[in-house]
């Protein structure tokens, strides 16, 4: 997994509530057997017309946001389907950080497995970052995971919370499975006790 340490990039405003993972990556793109290549279809049905032309006013099609690395979005981002294709598509497009007032649990979890940092902030902070993001390419933000701060374009810093273990995994780009396999003895011991409950 790619490490996440500090990121300075353009923030794109997606001022929509309840952005679901069907919106992020529609089902017709879930037929792939790979993780890569989904960026071109990120937000496909909002981003392109049915005949494949770009929708000019969709945020990621605007010149200022085509290289965006941060997404500032409305409440309950990533709700719905558990498809990890959603963070894969974001990552493949170049988004490494999503900021909202809340995230759906499964999506939130999936982000950390892919080197994407989801940040939960109070409404007032999201509103401020949303307004800043609407100023276009001049409005870059700097996200520093180590110090857990976001530096806005006007210099003000916003602090954010993140689980210590997830933070460590992101900072070091750790492989979860490798970490868990180090606890193989504990899993073995647990499985030995399972003999008491043969139906399991």
């Amino acid at each position, binding site marked *: 997994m790619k490490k996440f340490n500090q990121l300075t990039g353009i923030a794109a405003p997606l001022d929509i509530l309840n952005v679901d993972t069907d919106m992020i990556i529609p089902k017709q793109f879930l037929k792939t057997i790979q993780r890569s290549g989904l960026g071109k279809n990120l937000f496909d049905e909002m981003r392109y017309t049915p005949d494949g032309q770009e929708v000019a006013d969709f945020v990621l099609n605007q010149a200022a946001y085509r290289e965006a690395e941060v997404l500032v979005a409305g409440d309950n981002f990533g709700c719905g389907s558990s498809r990890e294709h959603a963070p894969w598509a974001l990552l493949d497009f170049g988004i490494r950080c999503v900021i909202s007032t809340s995230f759906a649990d499964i999506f939130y979890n999936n982000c950390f497995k892919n080197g994407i940092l989801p940040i939960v902030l109070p409404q007032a902070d999201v509103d401020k970052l949303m307004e800043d993001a609407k100023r276009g390419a001049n409005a870059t933000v700097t996200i520093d995971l180590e110090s857990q701060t976001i530096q806005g374009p006007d210099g003000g810093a916003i602090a954010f919370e993140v689980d210590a273990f997830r933070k460590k995994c992101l900072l070091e780009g750790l492989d979860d499975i490798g970490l*868990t396999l180090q606890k193989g003895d504990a899993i073995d011991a647990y499985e030995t006790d399972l003999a008491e409950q043969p139906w399991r």
Partner: protein
Amino acid sequence: MTGTTLYDKIWNAHMVDEQADGNCLLYIDRHLVHEVTSPQAFEGLRMSGRKVRAPHKVLALADHNIPTTDRTGGVDAIEDPESKLQIQTLEKNCAEFGLEYVAMDDIRQGIVHVTGPEQGFTLPGLTIVCGDSHTSTHGAFGALAHGIGTSEVEHVLATQTLIQSKAKNFRINVVGEAPDYITAKDIALAIIGEIGTAGGTGYVLEYAGPAIEALSIEGRMTLCNMSIEAGARAGLVAPDEKTYAFLEGRAKAPQGADWDKAVAYWRTLASDADAVFDKEITMDASDLPPLVTWGTSPQDVISIDGAVPNPAEIKDEARRKSTERALDYMGLTAGTPMQEVAIDRVFIGSCTNSRIEDLRAAAAIAKGKTVVDSVSAMVVPGSGLIKLQAEEEGLDKIFIEAGFEWREPGCSMCLAMNADKLQPGERCASTSNRNFEGRQGRGGRTHLVSPEMAAAAAVTGHFTDIRNLKAEG
């Protein structure tokens, strides 16, 4: 010391390791695998030279992308090359890693969340995961069941565990006696309408109270299935006699002395009387009307005798904009009575509502009536066994005579990954779980309803209050 909740009990019984930071390693008893969210996980195992730790705890089948039309040509005859490749990839991966695979032509094939319980793979007190958000369905048996992403599918395959932080406890008490026209689907929609699609975020829901106890196991599955639509990864109903009666004798359920021992253990799986919940609400089922969604979020719920809401009356700007966007997408005008909204399609199926009880209820409405000419309606049973049972009961004939299509089992138009999809602008009364933009096909307009309400819409051409239809009946 205060008592523990059902969720706490299952959690504690599965904890392999607890880190100082509160993250736990949780043992996973059952893993359901399907074709869409697993290929990258198997590829990950291959790349790192890892094996599946406990192959016998895995059950795999293809459901999302298989055709629901004639399958006599087998997998090779699937027209869409990508769908075919995904199914073939699952077959190969199961063979390579030694996993049980229910093939497309097996009578047990169906939607994972239908086949799992049907085979007794789902049992009370287990932890169950699947790379599918509707894994919450299995909570109907008092199992801690939730959806996971593909990275976690790989993690479970390799380690039989998951790294988890504990969720909070949220009890939803549903009191009163539900009238006969109120289904588990209406109760689920009422709850989501009440707490919102993010209302359960960070929680495990426990459904309790007389109206929940009165539900059949099928009804409880419908209810728990939609927990994710309230933002909760998992929903639970404490197991009871109905649960044991449903499971006893099923192929993968314990037998003989093991069964007795299991039931004795399962009887301990209920929240203690003095258990403390982080959040608790109470709703009354006795005064619920049949419900229908009007918008593009499952929380956009209204009574069948209500009207399309007016965004101008919403003070909060974000919510008003969201409502305007939804009505624009849905092609609806504020103030229109829901019963005047005409439909083009009807879909009866999905892991929410494709079980035998759902099909019986829809057939009871459809019997002797005809799907109106302007409507195309289809019934997709949840599994091959349900299809067979329905045919033995003559339900297929009722549907076919009324003008419904009778299909092979699968996820079908719930997510429209296969050929079953809405055309742009088509409006559908659907027994599925999500009315998101584009969910059933780009530009398609989905209204979530119970099987009875879907059948009623099919035979009248518009949303119809089944209370009136039943009165006429």
